């Protein structure tokens, strides 16, 4: 990026600040040009292309496994859009959101299974579920009249946790008018054999049918929230999240809008829960614990709070990325590509890039020599290296026989090195970079590849940290500018 005279003026100079928006818009370079061309397309095309791709997935020779990921993604998108109304627009930190999802799922299971011998028609059951979940959301929203920020977060987190405990422990509830304790929720085993959705004689009994149903629902939810976004009430909602006191000065009915956000968000979550219960044909309390809440928050923050395309993309990344990382051959590629791209983006100089990578390769061979000289027992290339990268990595990475022990040491060294590097100047960092890069690849191949399930979580976490550090407002979020 070239340095214009304005850039050197520094922050705080009025003109410089005033031109911030224009400067951001007239970005140069390939990335900005692609972005501009994309935004230049009519919005029907911009939304239509991803939609078409998604609809075509099942017909492009995909299997049930991919459809299941698609179904999970669809449910996740619904949840993220619902949560975005509460957190992204109204700025209410609701940590009990998953309870609505769970409530919807349990309510549907109760209405359409052998648990109580009820087998209500799907449409009726879903309407009841959505309405009761919305009412539940309204009730949980009531404290938001007085509680804000952290305090609301604590109160709602408590409700969220209480929901799981209640579901686990309500398998023997003694009502005073009954002789025997009653099983309401199936306890830790949950409720199984939940009816599948059946609408107008059509039964949703395949992954494909649910996949297509969820596409329709996600499109409807997206269109609805998009319409809200630019409406008078959407505007009021967003202003409320921004500065509730100033919104009050503009006569915006803050309490009513907060409750409406809670109610609508819960209703969407309840709908997602009901579909989840019928896809799974069962509900289990462990689904609705903290990890799901954290993942959803990660998705909407990653994509950019309050931005609809951002929320959709964030949810897609958080669903698909862990699946890609499930397979060692994919995750190996992904790791190396991200590492190399990340390094190039950090260096921002075509002269330094070859130097750093040459240094990294050299350090690898030096390490081999040192390991051999000490006499560390090792595995041959054929014994460990697999996939297309095998000949390259096999000859460069030293694979000790004691993978776990040496790998653990390398891992600790890597974490310490990365943490310390954040304190160093750019110059020192670049000097140390080849070593750290080699250490990262070494640790990856020696230790992390042994345990893909832990590794993928580590990697997702690391990616999130890097992304949020470089783009705190999320992928599509608007940068938060302090109003003085």
């Amino acid at each position: 990026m070239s340095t214009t005279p304005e850039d050197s003026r520094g922050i705080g100079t009025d003109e410089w600040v005033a031109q911030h928006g224009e400067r951001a818009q007239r970005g140069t370079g390939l990335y900005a040009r692609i972005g501009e061309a994309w935004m230049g397309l009519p919005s029907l095309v911009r939304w239509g292309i991803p939609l078409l791709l998604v609809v075509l997935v099942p017909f492009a020779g995909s299997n049930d496994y991919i459809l299941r990921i698609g179904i999970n993604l669809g449910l996740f998108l619904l949840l993220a859009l619902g949560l975005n109304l509460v957190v992204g627009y109204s700025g209410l930190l609701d940590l009990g959101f998953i309870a609505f999802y769970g409530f919807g799922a349990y309510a549907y299971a109760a209405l359409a299974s052998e648990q109580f011998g009820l087998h209500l028609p799907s449409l009726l059951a879903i309407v009841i579920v959505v309405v009761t979940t919305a009412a539940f959301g309204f009730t949980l929203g009531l404290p938001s009249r007085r509680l804000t920020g952290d305090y609301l977060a604590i109160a709602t987190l408590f409700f969220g946790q209480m929901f799981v405990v209640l579901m686990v422990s309500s398998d023997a509830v003694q009502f005073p008018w009954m002789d025997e304790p009653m099983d309401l929720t199936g306890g830790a085993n949950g409720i199984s054999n939940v009816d599948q959705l059946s609408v107008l004689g059509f039964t949703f009994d395949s992954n494909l049918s649910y996949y297509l149903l969820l596409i329709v629902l996600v499109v409807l939810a997206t269109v609805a929230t998009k319409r809200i976004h630019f409406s008078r009430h959407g505007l009021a909602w967003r202003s409320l999240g921004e500065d509730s006191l100033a919104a009050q000065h503009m006569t915006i009915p803050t309490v009513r809008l907060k409750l409406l956000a809670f109610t609508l968000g819960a209703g969407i979550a309840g709908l997602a829960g009901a579909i989840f219960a019928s896809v799974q044909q069962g509900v289990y309390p462990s689904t609705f614990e903290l990890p799901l809440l954290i993942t959803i928050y990660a998705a909407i923050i990653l994509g950019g709070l309050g931005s609809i395309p951002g929320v959709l993309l964030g949810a897609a990344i958080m669903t698909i990325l862990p699946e890609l990382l499930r397979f060692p051959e994919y995750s190996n590629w992904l790791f190396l590509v991200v590492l190399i791209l990340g390094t190039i983006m950090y260096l921002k100089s075509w002269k330094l890039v070859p130097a750093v990578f040459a240094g990294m390769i050299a350090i690898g061979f030096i390490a081999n020599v040192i390991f051999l000289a000490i006499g560390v027992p090792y595995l041959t290339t054929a014994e460990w290296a697999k996939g297309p990268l095998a000949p390259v990595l096999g000859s460069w990475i030293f694979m000790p026989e004691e993978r776990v022990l040496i790998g653990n040491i390398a891992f600790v060294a890597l974490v310490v090195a990365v943490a310390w590097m954040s304190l160093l100047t750019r110059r020192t960092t670049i000097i140390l970079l080849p070593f750290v890069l080699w250490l990262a690849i070494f640790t990856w191949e020696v230790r992390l590849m042994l345990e893909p399930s832990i590794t993928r979580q580590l990697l997702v976490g690391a990616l999130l940290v890097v992304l949020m550090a470089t783009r705190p407002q999320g992928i599509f979020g608007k940068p938060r500018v302090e109003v003085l």
Partner: protein
Amino acid sequence: MTERTPLLELRDVNTYYGQIHILQGVNLRVFEGEFVALLGGNACGKSTTLKTAVGLVTPKSGSVLIDGVEVTKEKPGERIRRGIAVVPENRRLFGPMTVMENLQIGAYTRSHVPKEDYDYVFDLFPKVAERRNQLAGTLSGGEQQMVAVARALMSKPKLLLMDEPSMGLSPLLVEQSFELIDDLHRQGVSMLVVEQNANMALSVADRGYVLQTGRVVLEGPAADLAQDAELRKAYLGR
């Protein structure tokens, strides 16, 4: 003149923050077409007076009237709908929203806003029109001040309340800011301006009140106040 109904009246208002007695029997009136300045040093109760008028704090005794109607028990939203608008301290624009969206929110009380109303504020502030699609948080301090005033005007208020319009602005911008306020007043907007910069405020206001530790110690035409020896000594520093 005293027979007319004031747009805003505070009658013998006593406001407390917990145990602390902030406003001690404040009486204040703003008539239609007037530009009233509320002056005083730090922590004398200027902002609390404004907050009491808007309804962000409730007085322990005394009453607030808007256009002759008792509103002491009403919430801020209800009071504002009666025809007052506030430019809050520090402006409090909605930073990540565009200037245009800020104006739309300013007009929230009205379900339909004719295009002329936007043209009216754009005429008043050509700079705001220029920046209408920009995020409000990226504007300079002076421009933000204009947007804050424009946003308040969008509700077509009978009375405009301004809290410290000079705060955070450079001396040159303070002067421009008061010229702008004076302009608005000439166009018929009634105003109550809370200000520390007494010199500047009295040079454009019709009437002034001076607060000291929660009491009105002086009131009168702005020109007289500007000449008042005691005031000059106490607040104007000369």
